[in-house]
């Protein structure tokens, strides 16, 4: 198929999608035709809603690749010894799985998709502050993705350092690491620009009357996240540049042979990468804070406490990076300090859980798919969070460091937290984004299977880690066999659920029944515009009165 044919194919697909959807407003953002048509009309569009969907499609693609790699790893671990791949292939697989899932899926995650789509609407604006810069962020994201993919497909072998690129192996490994490192750098830059854009948007473009204390909580978490993106990402950016320079020229900064210190690399890496965990989870918490009051039809409990805890997490999250390095060689004083702060940062997260549960108390709960996802989010997030305290305690950490326990912990947080919140958000805002409703029975079935698969996949890893099974090995002792079989079966169940969810959503985006403006009876501003929203969101910029608020339920 030539490029021209391909483009016309895409155009036709979009046209078909559009001709079947008659939205409330004549020029909704899906139908609108600007300077270009078809695919070009999307990838050159500065409309924040289209950019949000561009991110959604590119991230969904990368997520599927990451899931397949994860599935392959679990299949390898079905039995001790070689099952489907050699040790080197396994090393490459977990590296690429990590790089894709961290840098391309969960870090851009909810801000890039739902932040882009909803932030301007939620604050009553027509677009973000810098629409062109917003489009540039997406282009940089795509460039970063292709750079990383180039590292896999060309050169002297797929990177095998793990997603952390630890020195000195990252400049000694014979694999093709440079494009991967550069790709991660570019992805970081894209993340910085998105954060910058959101900060200025929230500061400058709130509609009249929308005071800081009336902002929806999702916007607040985007605000906290944007600060972390802005202030933490440059640190990893320059660190990755240094690794690249070390590889090319041998400058010596991290090379012990030339006087450098590899531990310094770990510090600099985690100064970004720990706050990055909060980049992943804060917007997820924001989405849950939107969903729970809507489906409880009740004012969110402790609005200001949630804001305070969001900003506290963003701030204290900077100061705990050392807990990734308890066994790497650190002074006792530093260990106490990092351990103490790690325990402190758990408090604001617990405040949020308390507030969500209290919001449900005595609410008139409307049980729908997004609510199932939100409730299961709280469940898995608590398991993930509490196991994090086991890791944050110095004595216990020595015991379970670098074991399957750690893998279970961060999958419960990152996949269980951010992933579940992402699915909750897509099921919550789907009718707003596409103007159509998905099949609720299939959506609930998909959720149930996914949830069962998730718990079956990751729970045995807690046990395996406690028993001493190390992470990042393609082989294991016979005594770990039972737990691994269970875990692998879990991965199959999870993927079944995932396929059901995706098929249902993709099908419903073009063929689902049309839906009204506000199917869930939400109170935030995005529910006051037609579904799908018109090109510039509002015909008239809304005005927030003294008694209006984002969660004013009667």
């Amino acid at each position, binding site marked *: 198929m030539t490029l021209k044919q391909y483009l016309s194919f895409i155009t036709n697909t979009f046209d078909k999608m559009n001709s079947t959807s008659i939205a409330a407003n004549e020029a909704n953002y899906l139908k609108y*035709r600007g300077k270009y048509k078809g695919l070009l009309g999307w990838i050159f569009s*500065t409309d924040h809603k289209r950019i949000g969907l561009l991110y959604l499609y590119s991230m969904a693609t990368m997520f599927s690749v990451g899931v397949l790699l994860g599935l392959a790893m679990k299949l390898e671990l079905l039995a001790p010894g070689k099952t489907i791949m050699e040790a080197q292939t396994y090393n490459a697989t977990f590296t690429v799985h990590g790089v894709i899932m961290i840098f391309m899926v969960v870090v851009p995650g909810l801000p890039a998709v739902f932040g882009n789509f909803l932030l301007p609407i939620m604050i009553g604006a027509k677009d973000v502050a810098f629409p062109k810069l917003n489009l540039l962020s997406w282009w940089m994201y795509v460039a970063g993705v292709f750079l990383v993919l180039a590292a896999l497909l060309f050169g002297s072998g797929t990177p095998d350092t793990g997603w952390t690129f630890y020195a000195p192996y990252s400049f000694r490994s014979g694999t093709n690491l440079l494009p991967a490192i550069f790709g991660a750098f570019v992805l970081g830059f894209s993340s*910085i620009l998105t954060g*910058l854009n959101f900060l*200025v948007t929230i500061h*400058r473009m709130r509609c009249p009357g929308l005071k800081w204390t009336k902002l929806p909580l999702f916007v607040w978490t985007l605000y906290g996240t944007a600060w972390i993106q802005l202030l933490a990402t440059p640190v990893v*950016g*320059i660190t990755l540049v*240094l690794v690249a320079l070390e590889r090319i020229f041998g400058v010596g*900064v991290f090379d012990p042979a030339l006087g450098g210190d590899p531990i310094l690399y770990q510090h600099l890496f985690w100064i970004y990468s720990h706050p990055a965990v909060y980049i992943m989870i804060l917007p997820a918490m924001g989405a849950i804070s939107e969903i729970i009051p809507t489906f409880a039809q009740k004012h969110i409990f402790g609005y200001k406490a949630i804001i305070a805890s969001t900003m506290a997490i963003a701030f204290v999250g900077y100061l705990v990076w050392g807990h990734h390095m308890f066994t790497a060689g650190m002074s006792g004083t530093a260990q106490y300090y990092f351990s103490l702060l790690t325990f402190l940062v758990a408090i604001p997260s617990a405040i949020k859980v308390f507030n969500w549960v209290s919001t449900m108390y005595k609410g008139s709960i409307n049980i729908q798919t997004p609510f199932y996802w939100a409730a299961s989010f709280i469940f898995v997030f608590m398991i993930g969070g509490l196991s994090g305290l086991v890791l944050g305690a110095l004595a216990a950490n020595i015991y379970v460091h670098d074991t399957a326990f750690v893998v279970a912990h961060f999958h419960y947080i990152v996949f269980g937290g951010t992933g579940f919140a992402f699915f909750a958000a897509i099921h919550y805002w789907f009718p707003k984004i596409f103007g159509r409703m998905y099949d609720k029975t299939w959506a609930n079935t998909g959720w149930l299977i996914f949830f069962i698969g998730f718990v079956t996949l990751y729970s045995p890893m807690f046990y395996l880690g406690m028993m001493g099974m190390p992470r990042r090995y393609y082989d294991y002792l016979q005594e770990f066999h039972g737990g691994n079989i269970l875990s692998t079966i879990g991965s199959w169940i999870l993927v079944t659920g995932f396929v059901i969810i995706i098929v249902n959503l993709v099908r419903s985006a073009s063929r689902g029944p049309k839906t009204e403006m506000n199917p869930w009876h939400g109170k935030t501003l995005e529910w006051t515009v037609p579904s799908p929203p018109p090109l510039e969101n509002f015909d008239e910029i809304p005005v927030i009165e003294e008694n209006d608020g984002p969660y004013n339920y009667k």
Partner: protein
Amino acid sequence: MEQAKIVVHDHYDAEASKIGMWLFIFTELLLFGVLFVIYSVYRYINHEAFHLAAEELDTFVGAVNTVILLVSSMTIAMSTTSLQKKNKTITLALTGITLILGIVFLVNKYFEWGAKFDHGIFPGSEYLTENLSQGEILFFGLYFIMTGLHALHIIIGLVLIAVVMWKVYTGKVHAERAALLENSGLYWHLVDIIWIFLFPLFYLIH
């Protein structure tokens, strides 16, 4: 499908672009901040070697470059004022001087680096690994990284100023839409202030 409906986005908000630029400057400061942290750590560990290696650098050229950048910062600040006073010719002249001073800085840097290369001092060179101590290797490694990254920022700044000059010339940047020039000025000051820290750290401290 709908007929074409072209919506022109024209939300000019000088305040927003200024906030955006300041936020971007924060990220740049953190970028260099990490390098300054690395520098301090290694200087603390290898105090003697850093002292020894610093004597290799030419304080005179460094001082000249410092003066050049300070003057260029002044001229770009003056160009902003002249744009507000609607004097296009002087604005162009002042930004032009900034541009030339930036290029002179780079030329100096080129000869400075060239002299080091002639002495066999560059990252990964045989001379370095065989004759110098680890502390000195680190000093020169950091010297090339930090001044190199700074030079890259000078180049970006020069491109930015050239674009602004073109836009002033064609009338797209004027007294009522001065944000681009003001932001380029801010960026140029950032580049300047980083040099103000680099100069004493590498050339002066003994």
